[in-house]
């Protein structure tokens, strides 16, 4: 089954995610300016700065469930906008999936993403092709499950997730928004990439980097978003 993924890697993952979002704040703002209210970049940056603080403060957390719950609570109170309750629910629900405490195996990791996705979908009631973050997260989780079923390594499973997330994100350009603020634009939303689908892509991009490297740093990044 390969090496287990530890809480240290989870911490590294979310720190990388926070940094990637902050680097991309203006990009996310531009996307939300085209089809929303221009606040997704600011909302996410505010959430990520709080997350960075929180991760510094409770660097002692030893349990993955507790860690994910703390991430969720931080995002709920600091992001605002639709992304706050949505990402909050993703991590809150992920926190309820089974772990080995300080680590997870690949089956558990995949299940954790599945729990998060199901929670997110219950919360926002969006389907695939509604032009939301679901269009990134759902294919990514499905790709993880398929790669897992094919008995692939963690690196392959997470690379498959990243690739599917990337395709899903790009696919939002072609479709019309059915949920969230962008849906007010109807067909005018076509031709623009969804901001939430983009911030969600970074979750998988950084997961592929941080959850598969076992030494202190591993930040080969792909800026394709």
């Amino acid at each position, binding site marked *: 089954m390969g090496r287990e993924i530890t809480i240290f890697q989870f911490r590294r993952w979310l720190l990388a995610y926070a940094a990637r979002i902050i680097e991309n704040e203006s990009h996310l703002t531009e996307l939300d300016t085209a089809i929303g209210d221009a606040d997704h970049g600011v909302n996410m940056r505010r959430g990520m700065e709080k997350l960075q603080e929180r991760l510094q403060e409770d660097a002692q957390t030893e349990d993955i469930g507790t860690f994910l719950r703390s991430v969720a609570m931080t995002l*709920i109170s600091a992001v605002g906008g639709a992304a706050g*309750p949505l990402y909050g629910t993703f991590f809150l629900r992920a926190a309820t999936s089974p772990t080995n405490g300080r680590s997870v195996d690949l089956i558990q990791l995949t299940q954790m993403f599945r729990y998060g996705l199901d929670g997110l979908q219950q919360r926002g009631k969006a389907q695939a092709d509604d032009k939301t973050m679901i269009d990134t997260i759902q294919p990514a989780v499905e790709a993880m499950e398929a790669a897992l079923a094919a008995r692939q390594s963690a690196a392959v499973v997470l690379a498959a997730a990243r690739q599917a997330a990337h395709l899903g994100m790009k696919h939002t350009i072609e479709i019309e928004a059915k949920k969230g603020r962008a849906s007010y634009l109807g067909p005018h939303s076509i031709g623009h990439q969804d901001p939430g689908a983009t911030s969600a892509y970074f979750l998988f991009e950084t997961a592929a980097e941080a959850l598969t490297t076992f030494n202190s740093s591993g930040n080969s990044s792909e800026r394709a978003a």
Partner: protein
Amino acid sequence: MIGLVIVSHSAKLAQGVYELAAQMAGDQVGISQAGGLADDCEALGTDAQKILSAIEEVWRQDGVLVLMDVGSAVMSAEMALEMLPEERRQKCLLSNAPLVEGAIVAALHAGLGEPLQAVNAAAESALSVPKYCRGQ
């Protein structure tokens, strides 16, 4: 007597609606507000934990009615309800009423000691009362 919670993306809007509603309600009706984010009052947004605290603050055995503004306020309020203990959750209702009219009507009816469902029904029907009759 039930309690009321005003939820808005804006702390200022929540405060304003709170004042309008409080004026209509007697002293017995507990009204609380959850506007903006706990971490940043200036930022526009809703915060499930702040909503949860507002519900706890006005908790009444007869229940609590939550009135919300637009969009993701609903998602945050649903989350807050999920965080409540089961026996409280059953006595907590999210209203479809328009925020301003609904809060005023709800405060009035809550002040009369009406039960949760009745207060909500009155608040939701606030939408069907015309404000202005065109062309007369």
